[in-house]
């Protein structure tokens, strides 16, 4: 018998294809799970529109529902209901452990260049706040590149969006 609880538990086991330390539930991209008989509707809000992992995430969620004996209907919702504020506290901790600085809260509003250039971001390796912005862009759409002046290590910063 498929239940919403079992679906959420299964989705919590699915790693992000590009940052596998964090699950799709940690990432906050699963907006809703609704179960009607064996039909399972998942509302999925992608992170970045150009993210090549989008189809992979959608297909893996559908497979997870099938593994539970359900019939999946994964709906991709393209609006602004996902932001980096939806990454869970557990997700943030996992990002930090894997060497990614987690995003700043959006509470302060739109990210601004002066704010990103300021030394407010802690190095995920040594904890120093003596870091600087190297590049607003990085190896995937969701990341910027920073450099730690204390331990002389470049690191990846999850963009605040």
């Amino acid at each position, binding site marked *: 018998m498929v239940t919403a609880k079992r679906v959420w538990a299964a989705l919590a086991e699915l790693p992000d294809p590009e940052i596998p330390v964090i699950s799709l539930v940690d990432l906050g991209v699963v907006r809703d799970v609704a179960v009607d008989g064996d039909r399972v509707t998942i509302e999925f809000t992608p992170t970045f529109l*150009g993210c090549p992992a989008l189809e992979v995430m959608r297909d893996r969620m559908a497979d997870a529902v099938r593994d539970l004996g359900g019939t999946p209907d994964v709906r991709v919702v393209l609006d602004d209901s996902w932001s980096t504020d939806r990454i869970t506290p557990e997700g943030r901790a996992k990002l930090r452990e894997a060497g990614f600085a987690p995003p700043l809260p959006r509470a302060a509003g739109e990210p601004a260049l002066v704010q990103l250039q300021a030394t407010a971001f802690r190095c995920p390796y040594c904890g120093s706040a003596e870091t600087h912005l190297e590049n607003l862009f990085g190896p995937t759409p969701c990341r910027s590149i920073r450099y730690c002046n204390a331990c002389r290590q470049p690191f990846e910063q999850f*963009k605040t969006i």
Partner: protein
Amino acid sequence: MSARAPSRTDVLLAAADDELILGWRDSEWTGIAPSLEEDVAFSSIAQNEIGHARALYELAARELGGDADALAFDRRPAEYRCCPLVELRRLDWADTIARHWLYETADAVRIEDMAASDWGELAGLARKIEREEAYHRMHADMWVTRLADGEERARLGASLEALWPYALGILDGKLRDRFRERVAARLAWFDVAGEPGSEHARGTHTDELAPLWDEMTMVRRSIPGAQW
């Protein structure tokens, strides 16, 4: 061109085609930008722009039929609704930065307009696109600051002047006025007067679109209907 008011799918396709073609031009810096950091930046910006195009085409395809790929790749060059500015192939860094900044400034005005649309899905998508475009604008603006003096300023100024009539062709009417005001507010030294000529306006194409289209659609045309 007909005089009828553009339909909501015309507006959508214009934005999608701009993002696709500019994304393609930005991707031409991959591997050859003047610094590794800019190689990464323009590659990532290109990826975002093409992602925006895809989402806009998907929305348009629901109204027009077909799918996003068919809209992106199966039309003839003359059927695209992109503005001439995005078609230009300019492998000069000052031109690239001038186009980047002008386009992102105008695109912000267009996205705000879409976000205020009473078509809920378009408004929601525009708000999502805006989250990503904010980074493009920060990047473009950082370069305008970096090139603000001396020889750099002279070169940027010459590029802005040459591209300005094309930039005026991105938007029409009130949106164009708003764009002009923003450029004037940021660049006090730049003359924002003028109107786009017919060769700069949306609805016409430069000679540079056809070779781009030929390359962009080559693989898809090689095996029509293939599932990749």
